């Protein structure tokens, strides 16, 4: 990958974009390590499907829908700022933030209903993985909401540029992609 001999070949990419992609690469390894461990543990022992059946697939499907939609609004925010449409930027950022909050709300409701049904992280291996994987993902969503909020505040003072929205978007979409895999891994199998 580093054998591009000429500087010019990659001068079209901004430093910010390269940095975010490298960061995402290390994030892939974090979630990949977790998901790989889950797959190994699950295939190595029996009885996980019965545990997974206690999860609510429809609820998670709604959450998937919410997160997919938030990805779209995020990229629309970027499209808006590129056209110089500040109003559109703020609207779509706000929508993204609200959808992110909605995702966390539904997740919190799921957590509380599981815990009330007696399924805690220490119930068994499936639940340990479930809470750890979704919890780590939820922390990432939270971080994304905070990033988007700061962009939103900056956008009100028109300090934001398209580049920053694009970088925040890369991160937000990555969090979405992680969920795209967590959803079937935990809920559908």
């Amino acid at each position: 990958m580093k054998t591009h001999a000429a500087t010019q070949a990659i001068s079209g990419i901004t430093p910010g974009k390269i940095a975010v992609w490298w960061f995402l690469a290390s994030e892939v390894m974090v979630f990949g390590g977790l998901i790989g461990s889950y797959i190994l543990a699950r295939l190595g022992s029996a009885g996980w499907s019965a545990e997974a059946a206690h999860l609510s697939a429809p609820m998670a499907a709604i959450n998937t829908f919410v997160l997919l939609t938030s990805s779209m609004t995020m990229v629309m925010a970027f499209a808006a700022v590129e056209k110089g449409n500040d109003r559109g930027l703020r609207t779509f950022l706000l929508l993204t933030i609200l959808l992110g909050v909605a995702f966390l709300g539904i997740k919190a409701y799921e957590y509380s209903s599981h815990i009330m049904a007696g399924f805690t992280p220490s119930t068994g291996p499936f639940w340990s993985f479930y809470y750890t994987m979704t919890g780590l993902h939820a922390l990432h969503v939270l971080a994304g909401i905070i990033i988007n909020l700061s962009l939103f505040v900056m956008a009100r003072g028109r300090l934001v540029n398209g580049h920053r929205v694009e970088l925040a978007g890369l991160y937000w979409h990555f969090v979405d992609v992680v969920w795209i895999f967590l959803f079937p891994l935990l809920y559908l199998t």
Partner: protein
Amino acid sequence: MSSERAHPNYVAIWVWLVVLMIAGVAASYLPLGKGAVIALIFAIAATKAVLVALNYMHLKFETGLIYAIAIIPIVLVLAMTLILFPDFVFRR
């Protein structure tokens, strides 16, 4: 920044994503063998992820460098998981 870049149709991609999501959920109820269902579900998930990466993350406008940064960790994770199959999955 890349203002002259042609944007993909973000809404159309979103429609595809939602359709695929519903297809994924539906696939989990299909009366097929377990292996086939799982393969189908994850093929759909991978398609969704690729759609998001290519269009929303603009990977399809990027150079080889960004592709490399994106793909190498995925290869590593897959390799690590596969190498460990004998020790966790096939063990006795």
